[in-house]
């Protein structure tokens, strides 16, 4: 029995000291996935996010003088584990970084009740960018719908009417994530007269897409647009090489720009393109700081090669957006220890200008963008990256989505969501000029 008493005392002590420590830090947890089927793509992003926060702690003593507690909770990309993590952290968390569309969908309806902002950079539910309806959700700097529009715009050489009569295959994961851009693509297809051929890839067949590529070979589409994740990307790229599909007609979303997937095919993958709102800049000043404050003391979990790749540096950009949100909130409210509601204000007033990027030492890593209470995405636009056989290089100027096409759709879907989840509060006071 004495044994158990000790255990109980140790437990209480830890809880008490843990509770005391919370008071002097910014608790910004992350629902990471370094295990499970998507670990290979998750790990570099998580490493980037983590290293940026460590760098801020070491270099500046945190944000606004308060150290960041960047705790990870491992989900393995499982929704069940994600919810467990969310429940565990929500008492102290300033933000939720859900890292999976499934977890986002589950946490999103709770945001109005729990009042913790969700930060889902470049993923999640596209209509979240409607800040009046989704007051607590943020998906900067670009949504999937932006991405879909920009890809179509780019392959049409800037004039969508060029696509008239073309056939475009949409190879996607058969999952909420993969279906996300369909409404925009369908709308564009109807408007501009191209034929959209959705080809779903089930979760179980990600690694063996022979059937899908047989269909692509038979249909001979002019372009293949891919919305894949994890093992699906590598599967699609190797299969495309095997069936000799012309790689310069094959375009992926930003989550399909993992260098490791293309290293599998190397030279043969030359010409493959992926849209991306982040770009690796190995000589950016921030990389030197990472080297000095994180890598040299042996704190980084990433290898040198990994640090030069798209995903790791995208992780840096994601943490930068969160840190900027915190900084903005601190400035707006004049306090260093912010609350989740104040962080929401910060994230809704992000202003990442060219000058700010230069101050941060991240010029060229992400396009400038700004958010407001109605626009939780910022719609930064994105670049097209192209695989040159060894690495991803920039292949286009900054592309931008025509929001006049997407906005009506966004309003419709946001209203639908609010109606299905009634009573759902809509922020009527927000009317940005």
């Amino acid at each position, binding site marked *: 029995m004495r044994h158990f008493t000790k255990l109980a005392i140790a437990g209480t002590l830890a809880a008490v000291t*843990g509770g005391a420590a919370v008071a002097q830090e910014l608790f910004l947890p992350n629902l990471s996935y370094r*295990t499970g089927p998507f670990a290979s793509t998750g790990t570099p992003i998580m490493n980037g996010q983590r290293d940026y926060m460590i760098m801020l702690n070491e270099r500046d003593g945190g944000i606004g003088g308060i150290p960041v507690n960047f705790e*990870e909770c491992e989900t393995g990309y499982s*929704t069940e584990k994600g919810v467990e993590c969310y429940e565990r952290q929500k008492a102290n968390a300033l933000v939720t970084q859900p890292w999976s569309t499934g977890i986002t969908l589950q946490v999103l309806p709770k945001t109005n009740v729990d009042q913790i902002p969700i930060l889902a950079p470049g993923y999640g539910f596209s209509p979240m960018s409607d800040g009046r309806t989704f007051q607590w959700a943020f998906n900067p700097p670009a949504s999937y719908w932006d991405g879909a529009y920009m890809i179509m715009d780019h392959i049409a050489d800037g004039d969508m009417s060029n696509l008239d009569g073309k056939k475009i295959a949409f190879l996607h994961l058969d*999952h909420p994530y993969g279906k*996300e851009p369909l409404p925009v693509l369908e709308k564009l297809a109807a408007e501009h007269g191209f034929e959209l051929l959705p080809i779903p890839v089930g979760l179980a067949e990600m690694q063996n897409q022979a059937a899908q590529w047989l269909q692509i070979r038979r249909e001979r589409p002019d372009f293949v647009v891919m919305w894949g994740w994890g093992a699906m990307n590598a599967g699609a790229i190797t299969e495309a090489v095997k069936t000799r599909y012309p790689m310069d007609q094959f375009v992926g979303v930003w989550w399909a720009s993992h260098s490791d997937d293309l290293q599998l095919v190397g030279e043969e993958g030359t010409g493959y393109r992926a849209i991306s709102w982040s770009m690796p800049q190995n000589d950016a000043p921030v990389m030197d700081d990472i080297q000095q404050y994180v890598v040299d003391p042996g704190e980084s979990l990433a290898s040198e090669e990994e640090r030069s790749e798209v995903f790791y540096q995208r992780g840096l950009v994601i943490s930068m957006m969160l840190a900027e949100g915190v900084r903005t909130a601190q400035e707006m409210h004049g306090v260093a220890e912010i609350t989740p509601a104040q962080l929401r204000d910060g994230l809704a007033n992000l202003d990442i200008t060219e000058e700010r990027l230069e101050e941060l030492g991240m010029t060229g890593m992400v396009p400038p963008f700004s958010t407001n209470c109605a626009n939780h995405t910022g719609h930064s636009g994105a670049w097209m990256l192209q695989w040159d056989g060894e690495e991803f290089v920039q292949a286009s100027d900054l592309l931008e989505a025509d929001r006049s096409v997407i906005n009506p759709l966004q309003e419709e879907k946001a209203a639908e969501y609010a109606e299905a989840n*009634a009573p759902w509060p809509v922020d009527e006071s927000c009317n940005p000029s």
Partner: protein
Amino acid sequence: MLYRTAGQYKTTYRSDQALFPVRQDAILLMVVLAFGWVILPFTASEFVFQTLLIPVLIYALAATGLNILTGFAGQLSLGTGAFMGVGAYACYKLVTIFPEMNLLIAVLLSGFFSAAVGVAFGLPSLRIKGFYLAIATLAAQFFLIWLFEKWAWLYNYNASGAIQVPNLDIFGWYVAGPLATSTTQYYFVLAVVTLLTILTINLTRGALGRSWKAVRDMDIAAELIGINLLKAKLMAFAVSSYIVGVAGALFVFMWRGAAEPNLFDIELSFRVLFIAIIGGLGSILGNYLGAILIVALPVILNTVPGAFGLEIKSATVEHINVMIIGALIIFFLIVEPHGLARLWQLIREKLILWPFPH
């Protein structure tokens, strides 16, 4: 000493056939029920409700459903996850088509849809047995998941292909959706689970339950003593799928809040099957013990390093967790191949004799 059965005379058949012929069993159950109904709801935190209490109850109910089919009637099924999905989608369609419907009624009705589907996929059991039947139910698993993905009417043509639980109230109390409190949801789940467990215990003790056991032990012999195999097997599929379907509806409406088709994938079927096997096939108590081991233990283990102030990376904790759970499963199966319920039965027998082993 504590569990002394001496002196508890049975003077009527009625008292001999009572649910708990031994007084201590009844007392123990009362204590557990008091814990479940009174003490836990007042002491549990949001975290405990959402990650321990509610999921354990729901998984235990799903395992009870499977146990009727596999443990009592001897028909192996690998389609539990999909049948849970049928219940969940049925409930979703019911509450979206009839928004005024009481959720309790919708949940209990949705079981009938999965029961119908279960009977349809149970028909091959009349001709095939054992592993071959498992393959037939596996077909149900894959077919139904495919249907959940492709039949857009099921998820109201939602662009993401997922179903989302709306805010639902019963007499002004929110019971489902983001506005519902965990305590309300817990009581809702507990009420349904208690009701169905009492029904199941009585069903398995009655004529139907005995015919299932006869079929399980030797179906030819059962047929020879006059049991209608068609009726017994299909009833097992119907009752089992009904309970599994209700568990599926609770799973989505009372706990998850949203669901995409692959949530009901084969992994869920295996999870429920593991709970039933480790808990003990052919036992009701076992489902609860199994659910505690498989669902609650990983969550508790996850909090252990933090409680001691140890700084371990969460990915490492996850890896260690998987290893510990795996080792425990093997350990329990070596110590007691008949499951945790049998382990409890042995402990109880020892307790009845203790402290005088003769």
